[in-house]
C-alpha cells in the first residue's frame, strides 16, 4: 500500500467516525428557527423563536418563573420560562427562546437567550 493511500485511509477513518457522529447528533439535537407566526400556525415540535419582549413581564413563583409576550411584527406569543433570565433581560430587548408550544397556548421555553447588545439604542420596546 502506498504511503499517501495509507494516510488517506487513516484520515478517512477519522473523518468517517466524526462525520457519522456529527450526522447522527445533528439529526437528534437540531432545533429549527421559526418565526412567531410559524409557531402559531403549526405549534408542533421543538423550535427556536426570536422575538421582542413586551412590557407585560410578570415574575411568578417568587421570581423563579417569568411570563411575558414575545412580539414579532404583528404577531404575539405568550412565553413561560422557568429559570434564571439573563442580566440584560427587560422589556424591549430581543430574546431567542427554545422550547415548544404547550396545550395552554403558551410557549414553554427550556432556554432563553438574550441578544447581547454591542450598542445601546432605545430603552422603549420596539414598536410593533
Amino acid at each position, binding site marked *: 500500500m502506498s504511503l499517501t493511500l495509507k494516510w488517506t485511509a487513516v484520515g478517512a477513518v477519522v473523518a468517517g467516525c466524526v462525520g457519522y457522529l456529527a450526522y447522527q447528533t445533528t439529526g437528534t439535537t437540531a432545533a429549527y428557527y421559526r418565526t412567531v407566526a410559524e409557531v402559531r400556525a403549526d405549534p408542533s415540535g421543538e423550535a427556536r423563536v426570536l422575538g421582542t419582549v413586551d412590557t407585560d413581564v410578570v415574575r411568578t413563583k417568587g421570581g*423563579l418563573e417569568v411570563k411575558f409576550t414575545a412580539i414579532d411584527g404583528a404577531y404575539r406569543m405568550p412565553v413561560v420560562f422557568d429559570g434564571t433570565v439573563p442580566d440584560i433581560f427587560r422589556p424591549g430587548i430581543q430574546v431567542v427562546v427554545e422550547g415548544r408550544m404547550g396545550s395552554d397556548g403558551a410557549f414553554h421555553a427550556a432556554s432563553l437567550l438574550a441578544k447581547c447588545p454591542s450598542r445601546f439604542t432605545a430603552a422603549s420596546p420596539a414598536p410593533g
Partner: protein
Amino acid sequence: MTLALVGSGALLAGLMLTGFSILVSSYAGRVARPDLAAVGRRAFYAAGIAIGLASATLIVALLTHDLAIAFVAEHTDSNTPAGLLVSSFYGGQEGSLLYWVLILSILGSAAVAGAARLHEQAAAYATAILAAVLGFFLLVLAFVANPFDVLQIVPRDGLGLNPILRDGGMLVHPPFLLAGFASFAVPFALAMGSLLAGGGGAAWTQAMRRWALLSWGLQAVGLTLGMWWAYHVLGWGGYWGWDPVENVALLPWLVATAYIHSIQVEEKRQGLRAWNHGLLVLAFLLAIFGTLVVRSGIVQSVHTFAVSAIGPWFFGFLAVAVVGSGIALAARAEYLRSPRPVEVAVSREGAFLLNNLLLLAALAAILWGTVLPLVSGLVRGEQAVVGPSYYDRVAGPCFVVLVALMAIGPLVPWRNAGRSWVRTAVTPVIAGLAVAILAGILGGWRPDVMVAAGVIVAAAVTTVQKLTKGGLGAMRRFGKRRHHYGSYLAHLGLVVVAAGIAGSQLGHVQRQLVARPGQSIAVGGYSLVYQGYTTTLLDHGHVQTTADVALGQETLHPARIAYPDFGGQTDARVAIRSTPLHDLYLVLGPTAPDGSAVLLVVVNPLVTWIWVGAALLIGGVLLANLRLPAKAPAAEAATPRLGAMVRS
C-alpha cells in the same frame, strides 16, 4: 469636525500607500530587485504610520467627546470613565476594524523588516500579501464602515455603553482576540511569500513558526480571558457556551495548535511541508471567516454586533483569498513535495500527524455546527440550529482521544520506532486503568467519568515522566533543553485544563430557589444560610442590592445593580468562593419586599484548574519557542555537519 477630516484623510492616505506597496513589492519580487523591495516595505511602514494617526485621532475624539462623530455619540456618553472611553475604540464595529488594521500594521511591519534579512524575494512577496490584506480592511474602513462618519445634527450627549460591557474584563479579552485574529495574516503572508518565491530556506521556516506561535499565544490568551470574563461577569455559572462567536475564535487556534506539532516534523525530518503551508493558509482563512461571521450577522449569535453592510465585502475577500491561496499551493506542488514523507505510521511523526487529523476533525465538527443554520437555510429553507450538547457529543470525543494520544505519542521515538518503546507505555496505561476503575467505584460506574479520569491520569503520568526524565542532572542543562521542558510543561498545563473542564462539566451541581431570610440551603455538600438583603443607592441613580449568605463563619455577598437609566436593566455581581477543589458560585436573582430573594447556587468542581492550566500551557509554549537562537543561514548549514562529525 477637524478630527473627522484628519481621521478620514489618514485612512485614505493609508489606502493609497498600501496600493502602492502591493504594486511595487510584487514587481520587486518578480524581477528580484532589492532596491524596489525596500521601497515597497517603506510604503508599508508609511501606511502603518497613517493608520497610527487615524487610531490616535479616534482616541482623541473619544476622550474629548467629539459628538459630531457618529461612532463617539453611539458608544459613549459624558459619564463614561476615561478607561472605558479608550476601550470603546475597539468596542464598536468601525473602531474594532480600525484596531484590527492597527495591530496588523504593527506586526506586519515587524515581520517584513525581519523577513527582508532572511530572503529578499520571498520578503517582497510577503510584503505585497500583507499590504493587500491591510488594503482590503482600509477600503472597508474608508468607504463602508468609516469610524469618522459625521452626524448631521450633533446630539447633546452620547448614548453610552451598555452596563454589561462596563467591566474591567471587557477591557482585556476583546483586544487580545482581535489582535489574535489580525495576527494570523502574518504567518499566512510569510507562507505565501515562500510559495511565490519558490522557497525561503530554513531560517524562513523558523520565522513562519515564530509568527504562528505569536498568533497562537494571542488567541490562547484571548480565549482564556474571554472564558474568565464569561464566568466571573455574565453570571450563568459556565465559561463556554458554544456560541458561534466563541467557536470562530477557537477554530484558527485549533489549526495553529496542529501547526505547532506538525512543524516539528518539517524541522526535524523535512516532512509535511505542504501540509504545514496549508495549515497556515487555513488558519488565516478561518480568521477572516470568523471576522465575517462575527461582524455580518449571517449566523444568529447571543452577541449581536451591529449588522452592517460589510458582510458581502468580507465574503468577497474570503473567496479571493481561498482561490488565490489554493492556486499558489497547487502551482508550487513541486517545491512543497517533502524530501522525506512520513513513512512509518507508528513513529513520533505518525503521532503528530494523527494529532493533526484529530484536531482537524474537531475543527470540522465545530465548523459544521456553526454554519448549520446557513447550510440548512440554503438547502431546506429552514434554519436548523444545534446547541451545546451537539458540540459536547461530537467534538468532545475528539478531544478525549487527543488527551489519550498525549499519554502515548510522546513515548514513541522518531522514525522507525520498533517495539522497545511499548515498555515505557506500561506505567501510564496501568495508572490510567487503575484510576478509571477507582473513579468507577467512587462515582457509581459512570462511563464518562471513568474515561475522563483514566485518560487524563494516563496523560499526566506520561507528561510527568517526560519532565522528570534524567532527574536533576538533566535540569541543569535547562537552557539547552528548553524546548523539551517547555513542551511538556505545556502538555501538563493542557492536562490540568482538561481535568478542570471534565470536573466542571461532569460534576456540576446547581440549584435555584426562592430563599426566605434565615433559610438554610444545601447544595453539593455545601450548607448555606440566606440572611437577607440590603439596598444601597449608587451614583447616577443606580441601585445595588446585596444579599448576605453565610457559609460557616464566612459571609458571601452576591449582588445585583439596577440601572434605571438603561430601561431598568440589571446586572449581577456574582459571588465566587474558589478552593482548589470546588467553586461555590452564587447569583442573586430578583428580590421581594418581604426579604426573600431568588438565588442560583452552583457548585463547579475544579474550575480554578482551568485558569492555572491555561497559564501553564501558554507559559510552556512560549518557554519552548520564544528566543530560540536565531540561526543565520551559515550557522544553519554548519549544524548538521557538526552533528555528522560527532556521530562519525
